[in-house]
């Protein structure tokens, strides 16, 4: 864990809180510091916060899907959208406050004077003090609840804070999709990344960091929603806390498999949100369900989970005044536990697709070299790290395009325009798809896939070994007659060659 990764995590978390909570709350004129919060009763503010989260997610998903189709999902529009939303909220709040400062709010200058006066007044100091004392006067249960949420976040984030590579091949595809979306390039619709586009724009980070850190954040949201549902069913903080602690225990048990979220898992989060908000607002419940559907359109488990949750929460609300709570609540609780188990089971096991060193070197190159002045020649996975920062070329194309006699000629030069070219060659060819990075791992490759040449070269052990051997052979042949090739990085698994060449003015 480095300071840089902690800082990146903080940026993604701050962007998430801003986009999915602060912007919709402020945009709706809800400002706690102006005594415009809905009240201290949990039943009141939980509904408001949940509604803000659901609406922001729905708006982000729909807007980014539409803008992405028009290749307009760009940072400028994202930031402008957030700003417009905030301005709207300030306007609404100022209209509400006009009775406090009278006509003074009509002009900016008068508002400023009123603000200055208000800041100096003892009443204002009292208000700031009240806000501070609110935090101090939280009940021990609330403090414990907050501590549990922080613990869940920490546990979920412990792996992505330490490792850069992903454990599932699908996550690389999603990362490339998110990068293409936020770069305004031609984009194949992928609902599981669309709602994350504002986070890329606001955090200022690349798609890889956003995908890496939104997994833990969304997992914490899931835990929070489950706790909320439990509280709603049992009307007890103890039940909510128990659910959270249970989730912590679940999270701690499998060390490496629960931080990456696949589209189905994300959709379940919105299914739970639909169940939690349904008693308050059916419209928002439908919005949450629709968001879940857009995130994972082809998956039926989230839809079933959503339906069951809504039914169980409604049943619990209906049965509570008629039957005893001990009769009504267990059914809903068992449904909730079932959803948690499905959520955990949805995560596929760890499959190695990239060396950690390859991910780290890709990041280092992106940090050290100027944008678009470098090219990485490697398997597909590095594309996720280079997209939007540099160029990428497939290693299989490189191997198939050149021959050793051709590159060993002193007059030969690679036809790349970039001043810096990096070749990623594995010393120990990775057994892509194996459940560990160990050499003796069991191979799970399906022979039928070998009809596809790139699947053979990247997926088949022999194909991968021949690919890496051929790449090393080509580079060795080139190095015998050229002086501009050097080793940029090497370890037991990987060698990264650096080809420095004069820019052709790309």
């Amino acid at each position: 864990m480095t300071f840089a990764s902690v800082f990146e995590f903080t940026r993604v978390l701050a962007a998430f809180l801003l986009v999915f909570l602060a912007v919709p709350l402020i945009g709706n004129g809800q400002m706690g510091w102006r005594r415009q919060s809905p009240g201290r009763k949990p039943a009141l503010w939980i509904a408001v916060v949940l509604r803000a989260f659901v609406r922001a997610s729905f708006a982000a998903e729909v807007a980014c899907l539409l803008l992405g189709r028009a290749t307009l999902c760009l940072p400028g529009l994202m930031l402008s959208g957030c700003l417009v939303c905030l301005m709207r909220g300030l306007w609404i709040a100022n209209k509400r406050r006009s009775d406090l400062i009278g006509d003074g709010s009509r002009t900016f200058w008068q508002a400023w004077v009123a603000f200055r006066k208000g800041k100096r007044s003892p009443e204002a100091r009292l208000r700031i003090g009240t806000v501070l004392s609110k935090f101090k006067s939280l009940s021990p249960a609330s403090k414990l609840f907050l501590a549990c949420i922080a613990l869940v976040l920490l546990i979920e984030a412990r792996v992505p804070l330490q490792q850069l590579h992903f454990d599932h091949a699908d996550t690389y595809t999603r990362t490339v999709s998110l990068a293409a979306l936020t770069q305004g390039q031609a984009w194949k619709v992928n609902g599981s990344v669309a709602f994350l586009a504002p986070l890329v724009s606001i955090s200022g980070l690349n798609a890889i960091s956003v995908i890496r850190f939104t997994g833990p954040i969304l997992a914490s949201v899931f835990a929070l929603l489950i706790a909320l549902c439990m509280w709603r069913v049992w009307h007890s903080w103890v039940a909510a806390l128990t659910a959270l602690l249970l989730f912590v225990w679940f999270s701690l048990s499998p060390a490496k498999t629960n931080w990456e979220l696949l589209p189905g898992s994300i959709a379940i989060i919105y299914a739970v949100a639909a169940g939690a908000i349904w008693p308050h607002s059916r419209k928002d419940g439908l919005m949450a369900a629709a968001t879940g559907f857009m995130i994972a359109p082809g998956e039926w488990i989230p839809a079933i989970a959503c339906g069951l949750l809504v039914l169980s929460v409604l049943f619990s609300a209906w049965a509570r005044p008629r039957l005893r709570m001990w009769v009504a609540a267990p059914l809903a609780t068992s449904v909730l536990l079932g959803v948690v188990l499905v959520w955990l089971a949805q995560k596929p096991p760890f499959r190695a697709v990239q060396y950690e060193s390859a991910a780290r070197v890709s990041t280092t190159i992106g940090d050290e070299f100027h944008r678009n002045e470098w090219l990485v020649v490697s398997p597909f996975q590095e594309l996720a790290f280079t997209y939007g920062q540099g160029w990428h070329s497939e290693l299989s194309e490189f191997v198939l395009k050149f021959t050793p006699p051709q590159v060993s000629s002193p007059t030969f030069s690679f036809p790349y325009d970039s001043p810096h070219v990096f070749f990623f060659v594995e010393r120990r060819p990775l057994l892509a798809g194996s459940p560990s990075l160990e050499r003796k791992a069991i191979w799970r490759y399906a022979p039928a896939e070998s009809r596809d040449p790139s699947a053979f070269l990247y997926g088949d052990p022999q194909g991968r070994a021949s690919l890496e051997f051929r790449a090393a052979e080509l580079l060795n042949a080139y190095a015998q007659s050229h002086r501009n090739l050097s080793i940029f990085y090497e370890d037991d698994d990987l060698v990264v060659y650096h080809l420095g060449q004069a820019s052709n003015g790309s």
Partner: protein
Amino acid sequence: MIDKSPTCILPPADKSVWAPPLDERDLIVRLEAAGITASVARSQYGFRDVWSMAEAYLSRAQNHKSIEASETKKSSAIADYLKGMAFAVPLVSCCLVVLLLKVSLWGGSLTANEAAAIAIATIASFVVTGGFVQVIGRQGHFYKESQEWGLCARYCWLVVKAGFLALLACAFGGFLANAYFRWLPLPLFGWCAAFYIGIGAYLLISAVLYVLDAELLLALGTVLGSAIVVTLHLQLGIPLLISQSIGMTGAVGICVLLARFQFRSLGGQTSEPVRLPPLGRLAYVLWPYFIYGCAYYLFLFADRIVAWSARTQNSSLPLQFRGGYETALDICLFAFVLQVGWVHAGLARFYRMVITEQRRFHLSARHELRKAIFGFYRRQVLVFLSLFVVSTCAVLITIREIPALQALLVFRVVLFALAGTPLLALGLWNIALLFALSRPWLVLAAMGWAVLLNACAGYLLSRLFSYDLAIIGFDIGALALAGASTWFCRRLLSNFEYHYFAATV
């Protein structure tokens, strides 16, 4: 104790309308209006009170002849027009230096990344200092017209210092934003910040020299700064960016010295303490003008920012300097200068016309006065139209006659920019009238819409089709500015006598 007589008892140096005092009471009013209270009369002039001072000076004041309105200095329309174009003197001097020596104070033969960084620095410096330049001009001219050179100098240097601090603060903010979003590599950001501060300081001091009507001194400072760049770069072989940084510092230093010299010669740099009005009051009066100054430059440069940041996935920076677009706009700048020069001339004529027409019409003939005002407004619009035709033809003929120029620019941008310049000039003429009638709020509303439409339309068009279509955003913004400001102007002019009276009060 001061030996010389107070200036308020003498005819004004600029030969404006003046009459000798009628009696002691009249002179006392004039003295007190000039800030000479009983204590000032006692401490600085050695009189018991203002009454005794008026008694002493009355005969001397009555010996001077009155100056009638017909005798006041009348400037011709051509002179006013040239004065209106004086803001372009540094630009012209820079162009001449570039034409003769191929080196300028900033810009020039740079790499694509350096050009982008300098372009960002230039735009940022104009936007950040725009507000300060506007308030220097606004209040500085007020003090200048009141012959309060001490206050003028004090005020101008105070705003220059505030502007410089704002430049530094924004540079620090930019550094933090750059560290967060990683727009520019650190060395490039360093150059960007250095040029931003240099150009910003140059713009601030230019505003002071404009207040002093010292455009030629500004041109001199610019040429001397360029000479430093030429010497360092062409003679000594020092890299261009370093030479330009030193040249820029030199130009700013020379301009500061010239401004100080000019103030001293006008009596502004005295050791006597002068007290400015409270800063809060100044800020209250001037802040709409400050916002307008920033928004105006934001409007002028919004299309460039939008065009340069469009479709930059393949470039090494998120903002790519596009020479073809910039050259096209630079060519059109000449047409703009030719058109906008009339704003000053038109405003000078407006004030003269108002005085004449007010004398001509009786109080009951308000309708005729309004008709005369509208007639004048229409005639000015016709002047702008004719200037537009002439300047556009000149630009198009120039482009046609110089084939090398055609290869350097995007012709579509030239056409759209030329279409937008008369709208912008008309908008600025209306804004000058709105300011004259003390309606800065209406100006801000028009400018706000113009900036918003310019940025939004340009952004969408440049992202959906081609980067150079950002210029259509400029046209739409200029149309909004011209339309909104004309509407506001017509509304005010339709009840002119009331609004003119209210503005005077």
